[in-house]
């Protein structure tokens, strides 16, 4: 590559970089998110209906667990999403800490309640599945126990952020906590698993039933997609609220259509 | 120590200098000041003035690197202070509202320990000498708990004598000091400036400095 070409290339890169940061500014992101939200709702509804149809009408009755197993179509997607959202949250947090972009911190803040909700749903449905299967509402199963700790981590993140008045400090402190949590989650998961096997705890797992058919997998996948789209839609809605709260005194907010009218 | 590099205009600075360009300070949602630029060279002193809440302390904390400016940059010797990190902190002495004096330690222990924590350990004789110079003779071995506010302030100010730093950032150094102590402190600052040091300070009282290189900066 010649010197000249290199220069041009670098120039092109630069403008593209600036565009990226342009999207990352709350002023451009706010209307963009507003336009995207209905689409994600539509996708969530679409996948949700398809997933429910597969879950209730296509997937056959389980030979061992009867109809009770149909809880997995929300239990497993909720568990997946609760872990996935924590990862995404930590990603935004790290981005915010590294590049000092305002929007990343707001994204992390807005994802946390949805993640906590998913963790809660996973626990709730796990308990409701456990009662008919194990005869107890709660068993110290490895998966449920680590889900409980993940729920605590979410609560800690939310509590820390709401205890700090300065939003910039709240973002940064939350980011450090999320990153420490991300390093810890696999360690916690494997410790709980080891602990569980040592104590001969519950060994029947919801997802390890032998008759797991292809159709069940499809149902879970569709429901997971629906939950994913739901999580995006609701966190975008919340991030718009957070943007308005924090950027109250920025000029662009006062020029917004919904503010001016 | 880094020698300064030749600038584009061809002038070579032999002494390091502190340069602030286009600083903006935001607290909460309010912008306290913006577009603030200045330059401080060896032997010069900057007096920062302004009403309560005008951002004096915030500016001083920015100059130390404790707070980040919302905009703009602070350079030491042409390099951003963020990048220099410990290298810059080795040139810097900050004295804030809180004096970092421990109640449970004696004046002497306080002086020696704070010097060690700053990365410049001193021996006992030097510490005693500094305490005497600031008028704490006979009180070196008393716990700071029993000292008066002014005496505690003097314990905090011994760091000026013990740590050999080029840039002093002093936030209200005169608080609680009596007339004699103010005169002593002015003498210490004058000597520091005369030896090629720099100082940035705030004060509500008059600070009768002899140094001719005192510049004023008003924040409003």
């Amino acid at each position, binding site marked *: 590559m010649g010197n000249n070409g290199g220069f041009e290339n670098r120039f092109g890169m630069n403008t593209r970089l600036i565009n990226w940061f342009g999207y990352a500014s709350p002023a451009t992101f706010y209307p963009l998110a507003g336009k995207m939200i209905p689409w994600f709702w539509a996708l969530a509804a679409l996948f949700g209906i398809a997933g429910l149809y597969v879950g209730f009408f296509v997937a056959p009755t389980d030979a061992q667990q009867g109809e009770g197993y149909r*809880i997995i179509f929300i239990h497993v997607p909720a568990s997946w999403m609760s872990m996935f959202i924590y990862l995404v949250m930590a990603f935004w947090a790290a981005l915010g800490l590294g590049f000092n972009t305002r929007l990343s911190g707001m994204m992390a803040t807005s994802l946390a309640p949805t993640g906590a909700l998913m963790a809660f749903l996973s626990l709730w449905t796990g308990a409701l599945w456990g009662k008919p299967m194990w005869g107890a509402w709660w068993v110290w199963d490895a998966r449920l126990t680590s889900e409980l700790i993940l729920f605590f981590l979410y609560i800690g993140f939310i509590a820390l952020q709401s205890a700090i008045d300065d939003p910039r400090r709240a973002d940064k402190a939350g980011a450090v906590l999320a990153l420490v949590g991300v390093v810890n989650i696999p360690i916690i998961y494997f410790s709980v698993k080891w602990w569980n096997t040592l104590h001969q705890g519950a060994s029947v797992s919801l997802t390890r039933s032998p008759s797991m058919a292809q159709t069940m997998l499809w149902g879970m996948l569709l429901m997971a997609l629906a939950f994913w789209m739901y999580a995006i839609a609701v966190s975008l809605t919340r991030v718009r609220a957070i943007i308005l709260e924090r950027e*109250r005194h920025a000029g662009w907010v006062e020029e917004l259509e919904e503010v001016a009218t | 120590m880094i020698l300064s590099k030749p600038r584009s205009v061809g002038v070579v600075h032999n002494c390091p200098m502190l340069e602030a360009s286009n600083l903006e300070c935001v607290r909460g949602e309010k912008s306290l000041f913006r577009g603030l630029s200045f330059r401080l060279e060896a032997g010069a002193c900057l007096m920062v003035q302004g009403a309560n809440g005008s951002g004096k302390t915030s500016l001083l904390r920015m100059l130390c690197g404790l707070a980040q400016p919302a905009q703009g940059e602070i350079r030491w010797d042409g390099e951003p202070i963020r990048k220099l990190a410990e290298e810059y902190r080795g040139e810097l002495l900050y004295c804030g509202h809180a004096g970092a004096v421990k109640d449970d330690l004696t004046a002497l222990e306080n002086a020696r320990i704070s010097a060690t924590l700053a990365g410049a350990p001193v021996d006992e004789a030097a510490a005693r000498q500094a305490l005497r110079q600031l008028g704490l003779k006979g009180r070196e071995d008393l716990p700071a708990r029993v000292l008066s506010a002014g005496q505690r302030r003097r314990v905090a100010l011994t760091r000026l004598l013990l740590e050999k730093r080029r840039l002093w950032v002093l936030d209200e150094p005169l608080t609680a000091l009596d007339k004699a102590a103010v005169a002593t402190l002015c003498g210490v600052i004058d000597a520091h400036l005369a030896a090629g040091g720099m100082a940035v300070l705030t004060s509500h009282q008059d600070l009768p400095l002899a140094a001719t290189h005192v510049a004023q900066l008003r924040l409003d």
Partner: protein
Amino acid sequence: MNWGSASEFFAMGGHALYVWGSYGACALLMVVEPILARKRRSQALTELKREIRANQDSQDETTP
């Protein structure tokens, strides 16, 4: 098709409480959360408008 009739569907082979308890809680929370998020935004908007109006009023007073 798994179900002979609607009542069979709702009975869930004797596991109705557990299955519908799970799906019900899930549906409820997924309706409540977006409503709360929207409410938070509209609250921010009303506060903003109130603040802007207050600023305009005080400006009107100072510039007769």
